[in-house]
């Protein structure tokens, strides 16, 4: 560091005064105050003029000279001066125009085109799968022929009751890749299912397998009963207004539970009446599924049919042979009944009740049966809703050769459904991540 020789008089660079006093600058390290050393000296000793504390370190950090006019300067500054270099580099100023400079029309056009491109890309990204998604029955599908149509309907899923059995049943169908309709009770015990942990599990299943699992509404509480109606019915015999209220509330509860709007209704005890069907239509349902014994009795109909603008898909077979005590059909009988329907090219709608499958033996029997139905050639599996949709849209026809079904490359869902599910699926998949056991699921064999 250069300093002026001791015999050179200090001159103030501001006013040229030669009356200059040299001193030290002191910093109080605790608060950062920097002042001439003289300002720290008090009667009580060294005190910071800023924070009034004498704690902490006081450090001499530099030398400053003060002239009689109060100008401060550093004598150590080298006295030899050189001319300054060029002014502000002009090339830096050419790149950017000042704020709010008038914008050329070229720039405006480029702006609009660029932005439109960006947003179009955004929109296009959201619907880029559109060529693969067709609304029902349209476009690039083909007619396929099947020997038999098979539907599995699982009645009574509800929270807080044998959830492990429900998981076991779902696992069977998911692992076998066979569609299943879950007929969910919306208000068991008069409490809505929305917001329960049960719903999280259902949403997860739906998110992971949107084309395999359908959720239907199974009555209202499932315990109300009109005793005067056939076998005691929750809906049959009830006033139309009450039925409509139950149908609407049940739909909302299941919708909020699983995140998708259900369009299939499964009446408890397989019984209902014309008011049920009329009010179903008014509340947005499309398909009803009871049992053939009832539709034969009430409508003199068996098989799938359309009445009052609603598609009726009655169940044809039960898994339970007797209810008290519970006894399931044995394998031989299950095999015989299915073979019969298969040979006759029938629509086979199998009802199961998940609560029955609470032992490993029964689960294995279910799995065996599902695999048996899969082992047959030309079997088409559907959910209840899907079958109903085909009938409404006339994309399924019975022929001598079997059942002709129009199949497009998309699933049963519309473009809007698909988009909706893709993002809802995002949410449900997020839910999956939070569960350690589910995170491991794809990596392990079950």
């Amino acid at each position, binding site marked *: 560091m250069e300093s002026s020789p001791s015999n050179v008089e200090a001159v103030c660079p501001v006013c040229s005064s030669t009356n200059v006093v040299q001193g030290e600058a002191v910093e109080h390290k605790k608060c950062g105050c*920097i002042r001439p050393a003289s300002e720290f000296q008090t009667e009580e000793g060294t005190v910071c003029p800023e924070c009034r504390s004498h704690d902490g370190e006081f*450090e001499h950090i*530099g030398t400053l000279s003060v002239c009689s006019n109060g100008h401060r*300067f550093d004598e150590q500054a080298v006295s030899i*001066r050189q001319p300054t270099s060029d002014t502000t*580099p002009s090339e830096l100023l050419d790149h950017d125009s*000042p704020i709010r400079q008038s914008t050329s029309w070229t*720039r405006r056009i480029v702006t609009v085109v660029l932005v439109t491109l960006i947003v179009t890309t955004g929109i296009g990204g959201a619907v880029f799968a559109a060529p693969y998604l067709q609304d029902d029955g349209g476009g690039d599908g083909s007619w396929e022929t099947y020997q038999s149509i098979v539907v599995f309907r699982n009645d009574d899923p509800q929270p807080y009751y044998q959830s492990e059995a429900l998981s076991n049943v779902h696992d069977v169908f998911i692992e076998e890749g066979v569609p299943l309709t879950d007929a969910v009770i919306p208000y068991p015990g008069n409490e809505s299912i929305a917001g329960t942990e049960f719903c999280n599990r259902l949403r997860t299943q739906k998110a992971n397998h949107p084309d395999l699992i359908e959720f239907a509404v199974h009555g209202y509480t499932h315990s109300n009963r009109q005793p005067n109606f056939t076998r005691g019915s929750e809906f049959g015999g009830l006033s139309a207004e009450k039925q409509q209220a139950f149908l609407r509330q049940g739909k909302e509860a299941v919708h909020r539970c699983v995140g998708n709007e259900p369009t299939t209704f499964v009446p408890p005890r397989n019984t209902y009446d014309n008011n049920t069907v009329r009010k179903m239509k008014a509340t947005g349902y499309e398909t009803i599924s009871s049992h053939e014994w009832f539709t034969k009795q009430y409508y003199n109909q068996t098989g799938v049919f359309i009445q009052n603008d609603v598609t009726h898909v009655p169940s044809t077979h039960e898994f339970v042979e007797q209810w008290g005590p519970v006894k399931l059909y044995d394998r031989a009988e299950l095999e015989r009944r299915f073979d019969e329907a298969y040979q006759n090219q029938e629509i086979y709608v199998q009802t199961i009740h998940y609560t029955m499958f609470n032992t490993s033996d029964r689960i294995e029997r279910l799995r065996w049966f599902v695999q048996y139905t899969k082992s047959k050639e030309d079997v088409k599996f559907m959910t209840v809703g899907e079958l109903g949709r085909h009938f409404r849209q006339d994309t399924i026809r019975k022929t001598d050769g079997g059942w002709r079904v129009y199949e497009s490359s998309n699933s049963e869902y519309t473009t809007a459904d698909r*988009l909706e599910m893709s993002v809802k699926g995002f949410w449900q998949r997020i839910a999956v991540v*939070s569960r350690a056991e589910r995170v491991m699921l794809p990596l392990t064999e079950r």
Partner: protein
Amino acid sequence: MIRRILSIDWIALFLFALAAVPFALLMFVMSADTVAAIGVLFGCLLGYVVWSYLVVDRWQQFSGVFTPVGLGVLLLLGITGVVAVGWVPALFTAIVQLFALVMFVFFYWVIVLVAVYHYQRDITSYDPKPPYESISILIPAYNEEGYVEKTVSGLLAADYPDDKREIIVIDDGSDDGTFKEASSIDSEHVTAVRKENGGKYSALNYGLLFAEGDIVVVVDADSIVHPDALKKLVAPFDDESVGAVAGQVKVTNRGKLLTDLQRLEYIVGMNVYRRMLDFFGIVTIVPGCLGAFRRDVLEEVSAYDPDTLTEDFDLTLKILESGLTVRVSEAQVYTEVPDTWRDLYNQRLRWFRGNFMTVFKHANTIRKSNDSMLGRVALPIRLVEMFFVPFATWVILGVITWLLVQGAVVEVAALLVFFTSIIALITVFAIHVEGAAWYLPLYAPLFVLGYKHFLDAVMIKSLKDIVTGTSVEWTSAKRVLQREN
């Protein structure tokens, strides 16, 4: 009326409004429950901001009602509520996603909206006119040989009355030729002083000893000011309520991916977020590369303190806490940004560590300043940015990675395109306002994935360092010129 209509920048308005399309699509494909949940929480935030504005502007007697703490409680209740009714799964990742979405919506439809309005009203456009205040320009320098002379030359060439300008270069104990370079400048308006090395805050406080102007301007030793910067910088001080003024920072080194990313980051930051803050007069950082302060205000708040690494942030908050406003001007300064990832890491580590230190130091402001937009809005937003967003970013990245592993490529791609398009719109708006290069918005995807995660990772590390008491010291980037030499 017609003149007002003609003065509107319709392109900027169009750019802003265009985001309604991707937002509407996003809402359309989401379930009604999710939209409702977002709506509830967004409504809470919006209501709070509107209430805060009214309280600060005219109803100070109600400042104790619906405070930031109250907002926190309300949001907690809101989240609990939407989970309880089943709109959102009761899962950590889902709640993080929900809150991140809400903040995203809030950022665009409140912060960006205010910025657009601020731009349309031309609020930063001050008209500098005589008489001009006397200014003392402090240039703290540590090992800035090769830079300081250019900086001083630019300041001498800037348009300002010579008799009202003095430039003081403070050499903070450099071990190169910085002091010699500064001392050699042949101008009566330039003073070079030298002290023992003590840090930037110390150099600035030392420089104040020699400053005689009514306005103190600080400039970094590696920055070049625009010729009209000084006049524009002091113009806002015509308003007596203004305590400090921030300049606009522009990046000089360009052409590399990393420098272009930072350039875009600065452009968006200054033309969106800072405009919102300026609208309320609560710009929270007067940058060290170009800022101005009233001399008496500096003395009143005891200038720079030694207890943070970001003395500029700390000082600005002290000025705001004193009741004065801090504004943005149109004064421009050109500076270098780090051009290697290591240098950028060092720079941001210091910034973020300093930010946490400063926020902890001023935590009381949030608790007590219920009658200012600083305590009610600016600092809580800062807290969310610093304590929530970095973690949320990485949580969401983990979820996205998991979804890709599961095969949900379509869903991930669609969502990324949505968010990228909105970020791109914001960058295009900022570019349009700035008048900068049009290729920069192409980097928008990296602000959704990549660059953002790098910055957030550094932020998380900084928080960890501060919380665990890791020894923190000044980490700086090596200058391009010095690296080449």
